[in-house]
Each structure stands twice: as C-alpha cells, then as structure tokens.
C-alpha cells in the first residue's frame, strides 16, 4: 500500500513538473530615468553657442561656454551682451579685419536650477605678445573642498612674413609658423579668480631634463586632456606616457613612465584613484609611491566587454565605479559583479554617455542644447530613477533593427521625449549574432515573429524584407502616403518609389535618404550609351583600353566586384515570379570573366602609388574602363566627372539589361501589419522620412525636399571682400586633361540634367541577397581557383540558386 502511495506521489510530482512551465512569469519591476529640465538663462542674452562641458560635485555644477564677438563694429553676440568685451587677443589687426574672436566664460549653477552665476573674475590664460591662437579648457574638476580646477591648453601661431610680403599677390598662410604652446592647471576662487596655477609643460620639461631625456633642439608641446584632484589635494595627470603627480604646493612629486594607459582617471567609491589601461579595465594608483599597484592590491574587477567601454565614471554607493558603452551604463561592484543600470535609449534626453555625469546609480545629470528655436536653449537635466507604475506606463512600440544608425537613434529618442502616450523600445538583434553564427540575430527575430511577438516597426537594413512582405508581415504604406498632404500625389520621388514597390504595387518601406550606386565611363571610350552588358564591357576592355588596364579599377578586389556585379544583375538572372533562373544561359560566363580580371587582394603597392593606380589617374589615362561610385550629392558628380575631365557618362555596372545603376537606401523603415498602433507608427516613420534633421547625406525621398535642395545648390556663392564687394567663388575646381583649371560655381543646368536623368532612369534598388551571394561566392571561388570551368560553375549556381528561389517563392 505504501509503495502505491509513493508511486502515486511520484506520478503527481511528474505532472506538476510538466505543468511548472505553464505559469505566468512574475512581472519584473520596471524603472525609467525620468528627466527634469532646468532651463539655463544668463542674465542677458542666451547661451547661443551652447554649453561645452560641465562638472558636478555635490549639488553644484560648473560649466563653460564661449563668447564671440566681431571686432569690426564692436557688436556683441553670445552671453552677457551688455558687458564690455575685452579682446583677449589684444590685436588691433583683428578689429580692423573684422575678425571674430572668442573667449572662455565660466558659470556655476545649483542642481535645482537656481543660482546661475557667472564667474566674473575668470580670465582665460592670455596669449603671448604678437601671437595668434586660442585657449581651450580640456578638463574641469572640483576638489573635495569645492574648489574649481581647470586644465587650459594654449595653442599659438604667427605668420613669419617676409619684409616684401604683398597680400595682393601672396598668402600669409604660406608663412604660418607654430608658436610655443602651453598647458596650465589652475585653481579658481568662487568668483573665478586664479588662486593657484601650475605650468604642466614646464614641469614636464623639468622632468625630462632630470631624466636626461631633454633635447634642446627639439620642439616640445605638452598637452593633457584630463586630470584628477584626490582627496588629499594631490593632482594626477597622465599624458605623454608620464603619470605626473603634483603636490598641493605645485611641486612635481612623481612622474613614472607608463606607455599603456589612457588619460582617463577616476576616483573609486573607496577613495582610491584608478587610471584606465589600454590592456583593458582600470589600474589602481598607489597613494604612497604614486605608481600603479601590482598584484592583488592593484587588481580591480574588469568589465567583461572592456573593449567596448567608452567611458569610466567615479564610483559611489555600492558601485566601485561606473562604466559606459555606447548602449548602456553599468555599475561595477567590488566583488566583480557588474549590473546594467541604464539603457541610454531609455533615457529621454538626447545626450548619451559622452555628456553624462553619473551622480549615483539612481541619478544622472547632463546639459542639453536645443538649437532649433530662434533662441538657443540650454538646460540642465537631472534624470532620476523612477519606478514605472501602471498609471505612468506608456504603450510600448517595438522597433527591430540590426544596425541602429545614429540618426534613427536620435529620432527614437526625440519621439520618446515628446510623446506622453507611447514609447519606442529598440531591440537590436545584432547583439544576438556571434562570430560563429552571424545569422543568430535574424533567427531570433524570425522565431519571435512566428511565435506572435511581431515588432511594430522594422528597420529594414539587413532584413529579408521581401520574405517578410510575402508572409504578410508588413503593412502597405501606400494608403498612408496617399492620405498625406505632403507625400501624396507624387510627393515622393517617382522612380525610387516605383523601384521600391512590390510586384503587386505595394510599398512596404520608405527611406529618409537615398543615393545611386552606379559606374562612370569615359564618353571618349564608350560613346554616348546608357548602359553596357558584360559582353560589351569586355569588348571595350579588350579593344579600347591600354594594355594592363583594369576594367573596374585597380582598387576593386574580386569580392567587392562580385557583390556589385551580382547586385546589379540579380534581377536579370532570377525571376522571383516564375522561379526561373538563367545563370546557365551563357551570358553569366561573361560576368565570371570580368571577375577574373580583378585581383583577389589589393596589393599595398596600389595604395602607395595612388598617382598611377588611383581612379583619377587610371580613368584619365585610359587604363580603367569603369569607376564604381555612389552618387549621394551633386558634389559627387563633380568629383567623379573630374576623373574624365567632365566628359563622363554614368552607365552603371555591366548588366545584361543595361540597367546597372541602382538606388541605395539609408535607414529604410517598414511598419508591421500586425501593429495595433498603425497611426502612431506611421507618425514616427513620417517624421523620420520628412525631418531633414535625421539625415546627414543623400538625396531626400521626398520630391519637394529634393527639388528644394537642388534649387539651393543652383544658387551662386559669394563672399564679401574687405571693400564690401560680393565676389563669386567656385565650389569646386578640377584640372582637365590639358591641365587647364576648371572652376564650378554652382550646380549647372547640365549637371542638374545629368543628376535628374540618373535618378529618373534608375529603376532598381540595390539588391543584396545574402543566401544567393554566399551560394555564388562559394561556387565562383572554384572557377577563380581554376578547379571548375565557367560553364560548370554557372550550372552549379543555376542548380543551387534555383532551389533557393523556388523554396522562397
């Protein structure tokens, strides 16, 4: 009987263990770093040049900015406009020439935003007599007594003009001479007056002399970017491979030599000082010997991913120190455990690690500058760790990406900052990929999608968009575009939009900017053609160029060329609609022959002899048929056309359909068809598409913006000379084949037509299919090694790619 009960109990336990995984997991407590903004306004004017850097200790923050003035009319700009400006450069010439001069100004403010005060007695280190140049603050610190320290770097130069110098015929920059620099550490009073200073350059030279390393014929220039004042008043600076320690009296106590440290010094939570080592992690500085502690005493726990650490911060509380990567802030405990404290994307401020002060694990501070308003607005921002309650929880939208670009990151942060109802959470799947399995991230995303966890927004770079669209995962954006006043009715560039549309006419993604991937040929060689087939390219190469010429450039290796050629020709060889592939049609062999002409690796000699093998020289001399190029600005036309003295034509890469140019998209975004918040998602995509702030380069996909930008480029550029005359100046200059200088003053009608022709006649989007590319690459290698004939390789590619295409139809 007992045995039966035991058996029954065991059976029950088995059932329970089976059901154990079915419970709902407890929701983890979620925290946000909620920002509080304190606008910083000086007594008069504004910080219109922004705030350059800040330092915080306790409840006080110090920061500095620059004050500019144009001396010609005495008009003031920038902060404290009512005050009398002192030209620290002290050169009358600057005033006469109307040169703009600048000076440093320091401010203090309490962390609750009150008590903004200018350190009125602060004067930056003056330049030497007869010198020009500037002074910058490289670092600031507040010591344990609350004194502000600044590390100033002085850079000086002068023009060693000859007696017969004539400014009409000569340029003073030809006589530019570097002057004596300086690096000064200064302790300031509450009002900014200098209380104490140390000339670091002098100390450094003194030490070199002591060590017998000083060379009187050598010009020494000492610079330092950071320092630290410890709790006993000793100052530590690491620069020029010296860890210099200066006593409170300003004497050099130690200058040990180390060649493997970075300049970053921090104070650990237990008061010790540590310096960042290039070997990874931090090294403790022994306060008695002022050398790096070795052995167990000097061993500090090292971040696991120390190669990705961008910044270390002073420790506090439970954390020995804090450190930041580009994505997160971590706290390192003394026992070696590291905790991820902040995801920078979750902070609703624009700044990341580079401008952040870590006051504690629960409190961060930064300074932001809003340049968009008519008046520049600077704010002190305190971020407090706050528990997310059901009342303040925002609806979360997920953005899936494999490559979070800087602009997309900014757009997400701006959206989160300005939206009280929604928050976008970025999920970067590239984090899941490893060296062994590059596609692990994609597999994870795919698995999550299938299990119903579909992201609301997809950043399409590196995603199998065609497959996702075919599975019905993506929403057609056409209705949203058509309903939009700005984007509807031809508001987007037509040729690009058509190229992006699916076979059924749906538009699943839009991009903020685009460029055109094409290839330039010399009209004198190829004539007036719109494109060329691989066979024609080989014919031109064999019959129209010099011997030992290159078809696509001496700096193009086989792999790059294969990617370009295949991307251009994929549509010709693969018919996704019927599943038919034509790699074995015979013409593919010509592509293989072109590949064979490219070197496997580029010899260093090529780069060392750029004047012979560079595209400029090779195209000019008829030793290169095509120059692959990306046109993302009208200037790119000028650069590339200058290779052939303006007589070029964009024919694209060799392509069977003579359509070898294709669009490249920057940051294409798609909307999930499953999202319940389509209007909000579209609002984000639209903002990213139309706001110029979120794109650095490329042509806008929005037709009106493209036209406006090109119209602006068509305007002639002028500068005003000393006599007030408006002189037109060229925006680009090149030398034609006769050595004649050609000046380009603006986007000419001819160039405009060339560019618009290129945009309007391009009908494909750069198509990089990873699977096809790897199939082709593996087989092409056999051909290039000579182990298979072109026909065999073509047949093998045909065989394998057909399987792939038919699987995915």
């Amino acid at each position, binding site marked *: 009987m007992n045995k039966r009960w035991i058996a029954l109990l065991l059976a029950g336990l088995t059932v329970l263990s*089976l059901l154990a995984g079915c419970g709902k997991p407890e929701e983890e407590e979620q925290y946000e770093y909620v920002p509080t903004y304190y606008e910083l306004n000086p007594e008069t004017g504004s910080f219109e040049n922004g705030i350059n850097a800040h330092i915080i200790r306790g409840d006080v923050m110090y920061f500095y900015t620059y004050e500019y003035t144009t001396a010609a009319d005495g008009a003031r700009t920038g902060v404290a406009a009512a005050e009398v400006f002192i030209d620290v450069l002290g050169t009358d010439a600057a005033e006469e020439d109307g040169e703009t001069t600048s000076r440093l100004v320091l401010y203090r403010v309490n962390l609750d935003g009150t008590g903004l005060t200018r350190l009125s007695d602060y004067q930056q280190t003056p330049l030497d007599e007869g010198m020009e140049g500037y002074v910058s603050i490289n670092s600031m610190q507040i010591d344990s007594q609350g004194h502000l320290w600044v590390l100033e770097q002085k850079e000086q130069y002068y023009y060693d003009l000859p007696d017969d110098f004539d400014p009409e015929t000569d340029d003073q920059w030809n006589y530019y001479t570097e002057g004596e620099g300086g690096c000064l550490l200064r302790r300031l009073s509450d009002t900014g007056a200098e209380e104490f200073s140390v000339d670091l350059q002098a100390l450094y030279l003194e030490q070199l002399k002591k060590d017998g390393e000083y060379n009187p014929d050598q010009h020494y220039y000492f610079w330092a970017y950071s320092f630290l004042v410890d709790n006993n008043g000793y100052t530590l600076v690491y620069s020029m491979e010296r860890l210099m320690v200066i006593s409170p009296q300003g004497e050099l106590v130690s200058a040990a030599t180390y060649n493997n440290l970075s300049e970053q010094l921090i104070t650990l939570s237990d008061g010790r000082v540590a310096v960042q080592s290039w070997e990874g992690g931090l090294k403790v500085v022994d306060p008695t010997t002022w050398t790096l502690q070795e052995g167990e005493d000097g061993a500090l726990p090292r971040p696991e991913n120390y190669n990705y650490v961008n910044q270390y911060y002073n420790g506090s509380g439970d954390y020995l120190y804090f450190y930041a990567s580009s994505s997160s802030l971590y706290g390192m405990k003394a026992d070696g455990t590291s905790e991820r404290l902040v995801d920078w994307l979750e902070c609703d401020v624009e700044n990341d690690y580079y401008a952040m002060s870590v006051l504690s694990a629960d409190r961060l501070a930064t300074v932001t500058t809003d340049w968009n308003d008519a008046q520049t607005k600077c704010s002190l921002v305190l971020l407090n760790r706050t528990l997310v309650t059901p009342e303040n929880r925002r609806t979360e939208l997920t953005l899936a990406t494999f490559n979070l670009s800087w602009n997309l990151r900014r757009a997400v942060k701006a959206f989160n900052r300005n939206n009280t109802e929604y928050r976008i959470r970025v999920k970067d799947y590239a984090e899941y990929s490893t060296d062994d399995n590059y596609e692990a991230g994609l597999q994870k995303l*795919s698995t999550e999608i299938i299990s119903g966890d579909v992201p609301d927004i997809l950043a399409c770079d590196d995603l199998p968009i065609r497959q996702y669209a075919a599975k019905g995962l993506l929403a057609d954006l056409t209705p949203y575009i058509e309903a939009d006043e700005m984007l509807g009715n031809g508001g987007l560039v037509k040729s690009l939009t058509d190229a992006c549309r699916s076979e059924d006419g749906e538009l699943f993604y839009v991009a903020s900017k685009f460029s055109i991937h094409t290839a330039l040929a010399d009209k004198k060689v190829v004539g007036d053609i719109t494109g060329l087939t691989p066979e024609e390219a080989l014919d031109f190469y064999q019959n129209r160029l010099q011997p030992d010429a290159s078809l696509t450039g001496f700096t193009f290796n086989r792999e790059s060329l294969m990617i370009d050629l295949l991307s251009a020709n994929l549509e010709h060889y693969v018919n996704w609609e019927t599943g038919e592939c034509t790699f074995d049609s015979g013409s593919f062999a010509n592509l293989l022959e072109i590949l064979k002409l490219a070197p496997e690796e580029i010899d260093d000699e090529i780069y060392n002899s750029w004047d012979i093998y560079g595209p400029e020289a090779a195209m000019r001399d008829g030793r290169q048929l095509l120059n692959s190029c990306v046109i993302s600005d009208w200037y790119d036309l000028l650069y590339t056309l200058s290779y052939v003295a303006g007589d070029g034509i964009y024919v694209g890469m060799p392509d069977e359909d003579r359509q070898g140019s294709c669009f490249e998209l920057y940051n294409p975004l798609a909307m999930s*068809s499953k999202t319940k918040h389509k209007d909000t998602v579209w609002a984000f995509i639209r903002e990213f598409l139309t706001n110029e702030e979120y794109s650095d380069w490329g042509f806008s996909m929005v037709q009106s913006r493209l036209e406006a930008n090109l119209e602006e480029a068509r305007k002639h550029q002028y500068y005003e000379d000393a006599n007030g005359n408006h002189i037109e100046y060229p925006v680009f200059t090149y030398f034609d084949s006769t050595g004649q200088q050609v000046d380009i003053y603006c986007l000419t009608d001819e160039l405009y037509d060339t560019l618009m022709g290129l945009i309007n006649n391009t009908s494909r989007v750069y198509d990089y299919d990873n699977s096809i590319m790897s199939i082709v690459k593996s087989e092409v290698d056999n051909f290039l090694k000579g182990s298979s004939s072109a026909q065999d390789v073509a047949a093998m590619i045909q065989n394998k790619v057909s*399987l792939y295409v038919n699987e995915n139809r």
Partner: protein
Amino acid sequence: MSTKIVKKREHAPKEALEKRRFSPAARKEFFQSIAFLTPSVLGVTMFFIAPFAIVVFYSLVSSPVDPEFVGLKNFIDVLQNSAFQTAAKNTAVFSLLAVPLAVVLSLLLALLLEQKIPGKSMFRTFFLSPMMVPVASVVLIWQVIFHETGTLNQVTAIFGADPVDWLRSPLCQLVIVVLFLWKNLGYNMILFMAALSNIPRELLEVADVEGASAAHKFFHIKLRYLSPTVLFVTILSIINSFKVFREVYLMSGAYPYDGLYTLQHFMNNTFKSLNYQKLSAAAVMLAIVMVIIIALMFRVEDAFGKDVEG
C-alpha cells in the same frame, strides 16, 4: 497464462462483469490507472500530439502570423513547387536505394557471422565501430575521401581515371548511400543476429534431418521467424535514411548539389525563411506517406509471419 485469463473473462457472465466494473475496488483501480497514465498522456499530448496538431493547423492557414483558412492550397502549392518535387524525388530515390540495401546487406552479414568463421567477434566490433564516430568526424573523413583531390580520386588516378567531384556530380547519391550503409549496417546486423539466435533450434534440426536445403531453411524457417525484425529494421532504416540529412548538410550546406537536396533540406530552409505553412504542409504529407508505408509493412509482416509462434 495471460491468454487463459482473457478467455476466462470473455466467458464470464455479463452481470458478474458489470458488478466487478462498478465495485469500489474496480473504481479505485480505475482512478489509480488514470493517475499513473496522466503523466504519460500529458507528456505525449504536449510534446507529440499538440505540436502535430499545430503543424496540421499551420498547413491549412495562409500564415501563422495572420491565419486565414485556405483549405488545401498550401498542399497544392507545395506539390507544385519544383524545389519540393526535387527534394521528394531525391528522398524517395535515396530511400528506395539505401533502405533495401541496408536491410539485405545487414541480414547477409548477420547470416555470415552466424557461421563458424575465424575472427567473428572482431568483425562484429568492426561493423559496429562507425556508430561510435561523431558525425563531424564522419563528415571530415568523407570529405577527405570523396573530394575532387581526395583519396578516392588519387586511387582511381593510378588507373588513369579522371578525377570526379563526387559530391558535386550526378554520382553524389552513391556517396551518400555508401555513407549510410557504412554507418548503419553494424547496428542492423546486431539486431538480425539477436533475432537469428531466437529461432528455435529444434525446427532447424528437424529441417536438417528431413534434408531441407539451406535456401529452403532460410526462406521457410529463418525469414519467417525474422519477419518482425525485418519490419523493425526496415522502419529503423527508413527513419535513419531521413537522418542522413545531418551528414549531407554538414558536407555541402543548405544548398547542396541537386541530387543531394532532400526533404529535410526543403523543410530546414523553409523554416529558416519563416515559410511555416509550406513547411507544415510538407511535413503533414511526409507523415501521411510514412504512415501508409508503415501500415503496408505491417500488413506484409502480418501476412508473411502470421503462422509463426511468438
């Protein structure tokens, strides 16, 4: 003994059976049985029945993400898909070649090792050794042997033959069949040897006394007694023939030469490309075909070995 009990119950009066069924002891036994069965039933349901039901569901909808019932469309699409056709043809050809060879050769080996030959145990170990070699090593060995510059071509070159890229030529299936046989013959052989040792010696002795030929003894006594094992080894070989995908995948990737592209490649690749409905339709069809094949084999085995005591 058990046969007798069953017969007794069959002949028990109906009332007695009813009484027994609803007695407290019977109820207790019933609930205890349920309790003991529950873990297995739950496990089988969770890990076999439910996933298969989901696969069937996926095969009947347009997309797992946005499911719309589409009837047999996925099945028709898959049947019309040329990649599937290639995969199905290759799988069928491979199974038709490899499975009978695996059964027949392992049986022959078992019969051979049943004889009194020298080094019997050594041969037995020799044939079992491929089972101990990890798949990655097998793949490495096979690549060394069958590569265009591999051992086999070096040997054939001695006789003036041109090198053959075995895994990238129409002969590729032959390589995989050899690999399959090399890997599986030993285990099958052991199963047959165990079955052969269970054949009643008396019957064979009687056959010997009555002057039966070796062929007669084999076909009319041994084979009939071996029929359940033949069935088992065949099913096992069919299953293993599908598992050869591992070796092929490691040797030639997701897109091998046409002749090596099997149903597992098709399913693996469609899984990676999120084409769950296509994958599910193919899986359901494969399951149906497997059930039909196994049912047919049971019928054959029933017919062939029905009068054999066991």
